[in-house]
């Protein structure tokens, strides 16, 4: 018997193009005839803040003493036109998420956590609830294409108004809240029949383009007697021009949301293939403000994939005034917690990957309107977790800022940063680490 007569076989080879996930999606599409809808933001790997590093202090930079020398974190938003700008104690805000997509307890917890730390939370596509208003010291009221629940009383009791043009998960897209989550209360707030799929328009019903938006903002200012800061939120697509046009339209604050920013429910193909990464948007937005002479006069809030204090510090160093968190805030409340692993498995997923938020069966009681599931989220305890998390983000950001010798986190600057990859260097407009090379610096942006 000679083993060498045996014909060797090549190992089974899985296609890099048709990988296991792709194959499963083709089979799912073939079986259902419906595109995949899910929550959260882009899950593909894209250049991100991880691709940037701080240089820290050295011979020519003096660090500040931790715990002893003050590093301020306060932020004022809306200094351009509003009579009553918003003053926040930390540069981290809570992004817009609707009552309807989130449970009332979750909204309350967001308000509690944010208020404890002296920052703002934001309504979403579905109006303002009393729980949310009552537990949010500073509340930003979103003005969306659907205008669900929009009314002048809530407009006047908001602390700021955010005109939503788009969001990072789906620039150019509207929304869909499936019937499972349209309970009597949600339906009443949106003036819709109970249990039907609720579609949200992608364009505003009474304005189109920046010239109209300027007039719309004037109307909102007139209605609120020029008191409230007015934000304009865009999904990161063409951030240089979108930021410039938002400023032209009269915004006090521009919010730029990268593709890692979450959504309650959108087509997977949309989330993963439309929009640009957060790191690629910040520099362009800042450049637009600088070119207009409006940097720090119109404030910039950046969101999409902010997870830790380093991400916060990097966004600020690139020129943002504050960041907003959504997905990370939900995780702090208890979303995707391994405690519910068995229940996530029963839903065909695992803790950490659960994103069928639109189905309303969230074991953690956050992205649901099911009364029994909702009870699982204690808004006081969850609010405490969020406050803890916000405190850590702030402390981490301060730690880095002190190491760079900054007495205010806003003193962080691009000069403090380098990039680990050529892509990140080009997108963020900072040098590749160990070089003085900024790819594209002599180009248009």
């Amino acid at each position: 018997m000679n083993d060498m007569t045996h014909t060797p076989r090549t190992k089974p080879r899985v296609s890099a193009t048709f990988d296991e996930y792709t194959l499963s999606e083709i089979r799912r599409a073939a079986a259902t005839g419906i595109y995949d809808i899910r929550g959260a933001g882009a899950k593909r790997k894209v250049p991100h803040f991880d691709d940037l590093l701080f240089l820290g202090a050295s011979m020519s930079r003096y660090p500040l003493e931790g715990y002893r020398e003050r590093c301020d974190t306060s932020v004022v938003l809306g200094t351009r036109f509003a009579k009553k700008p918003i003053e926040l104690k930390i540069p981290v805000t809570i992004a817009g998420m609707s009552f309807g997509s989130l449970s009332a307890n979750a909204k309350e917890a967001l308000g509690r956590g944010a208020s404890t730390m002296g920052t703002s939370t934001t309504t979403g596509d579905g109006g303002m609830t009393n729980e949310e208003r009552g537990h949010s010291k500073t509340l930003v009221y979103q003005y969306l294409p659907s205008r669900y629940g929009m009314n002048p009383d809530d407009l006047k009791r908001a602390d700021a108004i955010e005109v939503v043009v788009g969001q990072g998960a789906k620039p150019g897209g509207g929304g869909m809240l499936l019937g499972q989550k349209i309970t009597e209360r949600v339906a009443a707030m949106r003036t819709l029949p109970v249990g039907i799929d609720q579609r949200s328009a992608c364009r505003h019903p009474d304005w189109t383009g920046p010239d109209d938006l300027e007039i719309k903002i004037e109307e909102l200012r007139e209605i609120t007697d020029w008191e409230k800061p007015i934000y304009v939120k865009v999904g990161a697509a063409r951030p240089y021009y979108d930021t410039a046009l938002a400023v032209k339209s009269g915004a006090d604050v521009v919010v730029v949301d990268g593709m890692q920013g979450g959504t309650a429910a959108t087509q997977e193909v949309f989330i993963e293939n439309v929009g640009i990464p957060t790191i690629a948007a910040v520099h362009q937005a800042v450049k637009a403000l600088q070119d207009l002479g409006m940097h720090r006069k119109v404030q910039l809030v950046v969101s999409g994939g902010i997870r830790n204090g380093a991400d916060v510090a990097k966004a600020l160093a690139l020129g943002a005034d504050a960041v907003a968190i959504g997905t990370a805030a939900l995780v702090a409340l208890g979303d995707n917690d391994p405690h519910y692993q068995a229940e996530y498995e029963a839903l065909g997923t695992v803790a950490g990957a659960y994103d069928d938020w639109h189905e309303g069966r969230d074991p953690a009681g956050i992205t649901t309107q099911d009364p029994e599931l909702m009870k699982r989220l204690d808004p006081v305890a969850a609010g405490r977790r969020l406050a803890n998390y916000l405190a850590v983000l702030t402390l981490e950001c301060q730690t880095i800022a002190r190491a760079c010798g900054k007495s205010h986190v806003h003193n962080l600057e691009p000069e403090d940063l380098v990039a680990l990859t050529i892509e990140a260097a080009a997108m963020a407009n900072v040098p590749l680490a160990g070089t003085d090379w900024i790819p594209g610096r002599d180009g248009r942006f």
Partner: protein
Amino acid sequence: MKLSLTPAAAERAVDIDLASSALRELNAALHKLTPDTNETYWRIANPAGRHAIAAGLDVPVTVEIDGPVGYYCAGMNKQASVIVNGNAGVGVAENMMSGFVHVKGDASQSAGATAHGGLLVIDGNASARCGISMKGVDIVVKGSVGHMSAFMAQAGTLTVLGDAGEALGDSLYEAKLFVRGSVAGLGADCVEKEMRDEHRTLLAAKLDAAGILGEVDISEFRRYGSARSLYHFHIDNVSSY
């Protein structure tokens, strides 16, 4: 609902000339009014197409504007009666909650957009997207309406004495549409429905509120509403998405 002012009310008028007064001052003064104010009738001269005139009111007063207004006149109105003796720009009475807005000329696009309540009467024509995303308002247009009117209209009534343009009631929810003239085309999920007695009664009430009951023949109207086939996502409706 009175469509004209009594002489007594006119005598108590607060006159504002926007040729010499700032719009901000006017709106601020209107916002400061309390429900028991004696200044219940305001007469505005020379509006000259300014935007957001009488926006955000929340008192039962009458504001009569003598001339054309720009965008968002009477936006988010509550309680007040706003009369425009002229044409109105985009989004007149947008997101109105209650009260009465009367445009005696033509109205531009998105008249009554997203409005939750109250009555909007337009004596002339209304352009495209009249009643878009309306949420409970009653709109009566004595002329015709443009394309995509009542797009995604959720609740309330849109009554058109003239004709309707293309794609009337596209993606309609529960709003009720009455059109006396021709309809150039119906949008996705909008269908003609039987006009039963309850609908004739409802229409008569809206015409009465607009002050024209008896001036038009209710039997000439046709009713349009949602087929409700898009209420739950289904792949068989893919051509409508």
